């Protein structure tokens, strides 16, 4: 009797994103569902960098994949790019659009930081002066969100990409289609504005 235990069952190679895109463009809806399932977590994580509420994140996921669906013929003409980075770019742009939309709304007032929270920021700065290590301090998420809402959307976008996503200037430039110098200038300005926002608590 033949022993088949060491015979590996040949599994079909996973279809690449580019092949799936070609199938979607050809009218295969199942292929789009497969693309969605592969990349939805990444898109949700990107949205989670900017928005706290689950509904907002779901909205960005839907918006990003809707844009991607209608732009798939454009992607299929660009064989050099990866689908993951292409859809990430769409997701970042969707977040940017939503941040700009929220910025125009009057309820994003600057006076939301309470006196307790302001005292917390002052304490962190003093702790650093005494060698306490600001980097290791756990900042309240709510306070962080309030502080970042004081920034312009493009400043926040660049800072999140740099500090939270850990992307390099060149990577940001490639993803957003900006020049390297433009990213550097924006990052410099964004850091200056965040410093000014924090300085108010001193």
């Amino acid at each position, binding site marked *: 009797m033949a022993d088949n235990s060491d015979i590996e069952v040949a599994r079909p190679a996973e279809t690449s994103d580019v092949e799936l895109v070609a199938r979607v463009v050809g009218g295969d809806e199942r292929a789009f569902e497969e693309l969605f399932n592969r990349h939805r977590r990444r898109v949700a994580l990107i949205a989670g960098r900017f928005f706290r509420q689950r509904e907002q994140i779901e909205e960005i996921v839907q918006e990003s994949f809707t844009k991607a669906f209608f732009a798939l013929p454009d992607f299929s003409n660009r064989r050099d790019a990866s689908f993951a980075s292409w859809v990430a770019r769409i997701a970042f742009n969707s977040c940017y659009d939503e941040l700009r939309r929220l910025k125009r709304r009057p309820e994003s007032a600057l006076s939301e930081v309470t006196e307790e929270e302001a005292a917390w920021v002052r304490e962190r700065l003093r702790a650093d002066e005494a060698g306490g290590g600001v980097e290791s301090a756990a900042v309240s998420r709510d306070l962080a969100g309030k502080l970042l809402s004081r920034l312009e959307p493009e400043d926040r976008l660049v800072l999140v990409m740099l*500090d939270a996503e850990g992307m390099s200037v060149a990577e940001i430039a490639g993803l957003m289609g900006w020049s390297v110098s433009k990213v550097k200038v924006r990052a410099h300005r964004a850091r200056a504005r965040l410093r000014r926002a*924090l300085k108010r608590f001193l």
Partner: protein
Amino acid sequence: MAGEEKKPRLEGRLDRLGRTVVRAAASNDGEADAAASSSFLYARLRARIAAETARREEGEGWLAVLGVVWRAVPAMALVAVLAFAMFLTADTSTQTQQGFSDEALLGRNGAGVEQVVFTDARSISNDDVLATIISDENREDAR
């Protein structure tokens, strides 16, 4: 001097705190995972795509109408120019051949509708009218 030395240190502290703030605000993986694994997310996405497709098709219908109108603009302009040219030529020829006068048409002399009507047949003079009446009367007398 001491103040100038303190400034870069303060900016450094603010930058570090700023980075911490950005990371804290961006650390939301739990909610992101929950959103990504949300039930019916793909079904809602398909519904949204269907709605967007319908909206775009409607927009394309209007665009098609606008396209037809846009293509018709040169032809309509040509027709308008030709009509205007014909109007001008017809106007001058009427004046010369049949003796239209603006005064008669506009009734500046208080001639009214009658004069306009008679202006169309201006070749018939008052003498002609009288002659016709007289000849009719003569004919009746002869009977």
